[in-house]
């Protein structure tokens, strides 16, 4: 018995060591780098980035996308998952098509939308052909911030709704049918059944999905960069600029720490707000 008790630990040891070395250690280094400036421990790097003209924009822009994209994605993915329940033939094919954006890299997704939305893109071609515009119309410039924001939301929505969907579909598949049938017996409308039965039962899946999506959305980069460039600074693109363009690694690390703290806070918030009762875990 003595030896079998150790087996689980032995089995997870490689992954623990791997994560500690390749994620834990760089994390410690990043935090240290963020608080080290001009040869002493200080918050100088944070002061430096807070003083920068893009700092407020980066924070506002990031949240402007996250607070819209995550709830929208949840709603859309829930709708898709519910529809999928009622499809009998070709369900797998539909699911497969819906998850295609998952297999595309962020940068490629950004370039796809750039091809649609740039001055000579598909959108303008269509609008021109049906007579709505008389020449190339710009959507992605500093003069059209609302359209640029909408384009980024749209691209993020297209790109990452599938991950929410996949998690929700997996959750729905294991829901016991009895509750729904019981609700039917008591005369619940489909809408009541969805709100009172399905949604509460799905809470653990929803929790994981929004947590994952929020953290990933806070880290958005490639799509924003390809569509917005300098016109739409976000937290991670600013970290990238400080690291590579300005070559100030401390300031870049400070941005990384901010992204980490915001993600951590969001995760804790979800754990608290979407608390799953013990018996449902």
């Amino acid at each position, binding site marked *: 018995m003595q030896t079998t008790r150790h087996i689980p630990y*032995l089995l997870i*040891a*490689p992954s623990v060591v791997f994560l500690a070395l390749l994620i834990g250690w760089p994390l410690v280094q990043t935090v240290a780098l963020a608080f080290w400036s001009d040869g002493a421990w200080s918050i100088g790097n944070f002061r430096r980035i807070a003083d*920068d*003209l893009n700092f407020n924009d980066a924070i506002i822009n990031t949240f402007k996308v996250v607070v819209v994209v995550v709830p929208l994605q949840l709603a859309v993915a829930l709708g898709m998952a519910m529809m999928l329940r009622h499809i009998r033939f070709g369900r797998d094919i539909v699911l497969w098509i819906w998850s295609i954006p998952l297999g595309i890299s962020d940068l490629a997704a950004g370039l796809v939308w750039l091809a649609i939305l740039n*001055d*000579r893109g598909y959108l303008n071609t269509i609008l021109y052909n049906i007579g709505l515009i008389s*020449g*190339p119309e*710009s959507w*992605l*410039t*500093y*003069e059209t911030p609302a359209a640029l924001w909408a384009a980024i939301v749209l691209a993020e929505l297209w790109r990452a709704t599938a991950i929410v969907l996949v998690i929700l579909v997996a959750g729905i598949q294991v829901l016991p049918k009895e509750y729904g049938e019981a609700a039917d017996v008591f005369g619940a409308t489909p809408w009541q059944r969805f709100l009172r039965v399905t949604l509460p039962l799905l809470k653990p899946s929803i929790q994981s999905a929004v947590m994952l999506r929020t953290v990933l959305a806070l880290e958005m980069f490639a799509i924003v*960069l390809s569509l917005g*460039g*300098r*016109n739409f600074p976000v937290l991670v693109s600013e970290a990238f600029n400080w690291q*590579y*363009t*300005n*070559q*100030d690694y401390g300031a870049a690390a400070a941005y990384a720490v901010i992204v980490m703290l915001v993600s951590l806070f969001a995760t804790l918030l979800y754990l608290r707000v979407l608390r799953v009762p013990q018996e449902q875990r």
Partner: protein
Amino acid sequence: MRKISHVLSGALLAVGIAGGLAGGAARADDLVFMSTQLRPVEEAQKVRDVILKDFAGHVNFVVDQPQQLLVRFRAEQQGGSHTISLVGALHGELEPLASGNFLMPVDDLAAQLSGRGILPKLMTLGRFGGEHQMYIPWMQASYIMVANKQALPFLPAGADINKLTYDQLAAWGKAIQDKTGKRLLGFPAGPQGLMHRFFEGYLYPSFTGGVVTTFRSPDAVSMWTQFRGLWKYVNPNSTSYGFMQEPLLSGDVWIAFDHEARMLDALRKRPDDFVAFPPPAGPHGAGFMPVIAGLAISLDAPDAAGAKALIEYLLRPETQILTARSTSFLPVLKVGLPADLDPGLRMAADAIQQAQAAPDAIASVLPIGLGDKSGEFDKVFLDTFQLIVLRGAKPEDALAREAAQLQQVLDQTQAPCWSPDPSSQGACKVK
């Protein structure tokens, strides 16, 4: 534990295989020539297949982003494994390597090549103001303007395209907008663009006669006010443009400023549709900023002798002309360009020649002595542009704010002034 060690050795094997594959056909004893220039795939391939074809040794020509150069040198030094022998990069990119003590002085090579006719001005730059030759000039280029011929009828009356002023450029852009309804001036102000060089080497010297010392002078205030006026005729997509050849070819822009190499594709593809001309002049003259790429040898070069032989080869007159033909850079030697040079490159070369020879030319060099702070130096100019031109801030306020940032960069690096600013004792000061 045995299983774990199996897994580990399997993983190591996989990494080893991947590493081997990534190396391609290169051999371990090849001379590694790392370059931040000639990065596009076709150009890099021309270096391998055409320019290096007649060189006696085996060369592994690798390219990387300029930002990665210093990172890579630091990593190799920390890791203790040195692979790079020869570095080809711009003057400003080599500077942090020289100040970081990553480069081998090449005084002997400079003496050996003294008979080749390398332009003395360029050779001097390779000393970074010090005693030792740190790099040998390799290729040169500069910034020019290119216009679509459709724009020429709109040139203001009496304007000579080869002696344009900024007022005339604005009037030109306005005339085009009045007639076509489109804003067809263009600048490379996107994330990949070189807009900061326009401010450092062209706008500031032309309007204020300096760059750092005159950063917040009354001349600078009127310059930004005037440039904000000109920006009304600039295509708003400019903040996304990286290489101006693309909007020129698509017709989104009719008149553009950029690095000659970044517009050459347009000139080469449709030489009959475009004209090249020198950038405009301001009240103080016409700014002119040569771009110099140099060849330097790594201090810990695995093959320093091979690197020297390769530099000697690349600076032969015939190799220099071959390089001009195959790439978008011009020779650093006093050699005549061959008559059968392609018309696009010749147009660009002529425009550069005119800019260089203009009687009111104010030559600037790329920032010197900033080391790894050169990115923050550029940021000051881009931020000022963003504040005043894109966000409409009051020029005096924006300049006061950014002057403090600029002074901080100069104090941290203790960089003395470089031309066109008058030379200084100690760190250059914003007046």
